[in-house]
């Protein structure tokens, strides 16, 4: 074989979504005090580069089977591997575009000047999220969860204030308990199977003695409970509204991906390792989550609460599709997943602009004096609301349609149809109420503060970018659904994954290739 340096680099590109933010984060740390503008430039440049890398990885993943990348050059069951497949590439692309929009928004609105370390922490947050999507090892998944959590503790407290600190303590304690539970599940699974590699565990889990089977499934359910905690599934959702509505809205926009990390982990591990063990619990919990999320929107008194509950509801819709655990359901879920993430991020960023440009009453859903730029914000709020509620013409409508279509084969189809349709209506009512109060009614009594920021229209660019992505996802729904169908088929093809990761075929390792010209 005649392998060149460019082949090595191409193989190593799989590690780039982890290496790049760690480098950029460190660089931003160096420049953060003296040259803030350089730090912001590094951060935004890094996210832009991550978009390009994610596109390259997506193209590669769509043309080949899952590709393992041995980090320490030890083959799969012994060393730690990263695995690039269509699912991972899809999630990486989503993370990078949302990361790009949020980093730009933070720089434009000067959110990054409220403390010293916004950009370094932001990059480490992306590092953790990208790593969680790429890793093929369960303990490594735990480590990347910790990395993204530690960074999220920093981001959630960014800007400080008493309310943010109080909810920050709760967020940290909840997630520490979640991490503890993660280790319990991991410990049980390792004790039973003697491995932590996902592919190896899937292979060994299928051959367990009857007596060990129960313990194995119990470990699996503990892990799924942890993932459900991250995804804010019904009984485990209580941490989310308060944490997301008291942090800076731009940070909450990035955190829209964090619930999807939980959803991703369920998609990754359940069909591969645990089979249909969680099915009877997941579906009712997801339906309940939708009801609770969208009903919560109706009760929200602030725009940030509204967006946070909308995020819970739409993640519930996503989990319903995942809980079907068949090809069509997963394909629908994977089409709806980027849509709901981008829609929630768009809504949070718009709310941030409303708070800034309005100047009074914070994010409360009350009438205020007329303010400049209101028509642009009303348009963005309408677009975000339409997207989150899943109305035509944006991609949420197609996503919900695909989910409803996939649910037809389920024995619980009536429940799924009823809940999704009725809650969509509730969401529309809640968003219409909030939007008309904020943008149509006026009340001139509150005094405008003197130091109010004048609206700078350029600040709306990241929102428009996200909106353009939603439009793109709608216009190119054909290619996108073809891709997600391929992804769903790949996720459910367990033998293919095992063969690709554990197979005797040589894994691309830079050292071995470099020594063999």
């Amino acid at each position, binding site marked *: 074989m005649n392998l060149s340096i460019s082949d090595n680099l191409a193989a190593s590109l799989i590690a780039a979504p982890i290496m790049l933010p760690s480098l950029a984060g460190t660089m931003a740390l160096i420049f953060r005090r003296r040259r803030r503008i350089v730090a912001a430039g590094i951060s935004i440049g890094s996210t832009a580069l991550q978009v390009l890398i994610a596109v390259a990885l997506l193209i590669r993943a769509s043309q080949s089977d899952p590709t393992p990348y041995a980090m320490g050059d030890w083959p799969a069951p012994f060393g730690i591997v990263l695995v690039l497949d269509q699912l991972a590439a899809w999630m990486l692309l989503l993370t990078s575009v949302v990361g790009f929009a949020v980093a730009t928004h933070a720089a434009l609105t000067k959110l990054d000047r409220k*403390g*010293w370390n916004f950009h370094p922490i932001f990059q480490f947050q992306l590092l953790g999220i990208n790593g969680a999507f790429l890793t093929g090892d369960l*303990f490594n998944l735990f*480590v990347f969860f*910790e990395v993204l959590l*530690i960074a999220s*503790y920093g981001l959630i*407290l960014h800007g*400080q*204030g*008493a*309310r943010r*600190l*109080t*909810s*920050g*303590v*709760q967020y*940290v*304690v909840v997630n*520490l*308990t979640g*991490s*503890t539970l993660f*280790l*319990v599940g*991991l*410990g*049980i699974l*390792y*004790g039973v199977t*003697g491995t*932590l590699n996902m592919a190896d565990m899937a292979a060994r889990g299928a051959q367990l003695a009857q007596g060990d089977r129960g313990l194995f499934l119990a470990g699996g359910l503990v892990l799924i409970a942890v993932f459900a905690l991250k995804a804010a599934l019904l009984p485990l959702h209580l941490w989310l509204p308060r944490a997301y509505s008291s942090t800076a809205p731009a940070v909450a926009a990035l955190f829209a991906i964090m619930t999807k990390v939980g959803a991703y982990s369920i998609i990754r591990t359940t069909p591969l390792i645990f089979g249909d063990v969680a099915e009877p619990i997941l579906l009712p919990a997801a339906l309940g989550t939708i009801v609770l999320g969208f009903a919560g929107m109706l009760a929200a008194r602030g725009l940030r609460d509204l967006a946070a509950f909308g995020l819970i509801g739409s993640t519930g819709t996503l989990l319903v599709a995942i809980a079907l655990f068949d090809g069509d359901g997963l394909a629908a879920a994977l089409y709806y997943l980027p849509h709901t993430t981008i829609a929630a991020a768009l809504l949070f960023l718009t709310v941030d602009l409303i708070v800034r440009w309005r100047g009074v009453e914070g994010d409360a859903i009350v009438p205020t004096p007329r303010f400049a730029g209101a028509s642009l914000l009303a348009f963005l709020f309408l677009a975000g609301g339409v997207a989150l509620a899943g109305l035509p013409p944006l991609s949420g409508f197609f996503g919900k349609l695909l989910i409803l279509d996939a649910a037809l084969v389920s024995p619980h189809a009536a429940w799924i149809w009823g809940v999704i349709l009725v809650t969509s209506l509730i969401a529309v009512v809640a968003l219409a109420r909030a939007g008309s109060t904020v943008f149509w009614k006026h009340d001139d009594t509150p005094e405008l503060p003197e130091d109010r920021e004048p609206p700078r229209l350029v600040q709306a660019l990241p929102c428009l970018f996200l909106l353009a992505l939603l439009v793109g996802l709608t216009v190119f729904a054909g290619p996108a659904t073809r891709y997600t169908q391929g992804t769903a088929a790949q996720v459910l093809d367990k033998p293919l994954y095992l063969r690709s990761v554990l197979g005797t075929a040589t894994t691309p390792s830079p050292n071995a290739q470099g020594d063999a010209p």
Partner: protein
Amino acid sequence: MSMEFLIATAIGALTWAGIYLSLRGRTFPVVLGVTMLSYAINLFLFAIGRLKVGAPPIFSEEAATYTDPLPQALVLTAIVISFGMSALVVVLSLRTFLETGTDQVDGEPDPAIDPLDGDRDEWIKRRNAHRIDMLGETRP
């Protein structure tokens, strides 16, 4: 008493204490509870490679059997992470206490222990006047 019984009981007792304490209303017991839980987990992880006495984990010329080295590596990682986390949660609780004047986890002051409404603002102001700036940030 076998070693298995001893270890299992220790893990159970630590978990029990951890769950009880982390459900308390004030931050100090919660911090202790989370720490207890992480101790329990460290022991548990250590035990998942089966308990073997006097067996080396990696290599020894005289060894007849080996113990599983991987759980020990996992415990090491878990200890490092949980130690960092404990430090973070302690600093965070202290900071919250200083900013809000109460150490209730839900942020609602308990009238039996915490300074009264009017006193609290004064109290926070006095605290803030000569407190150590723990996170090294300039105050606005």
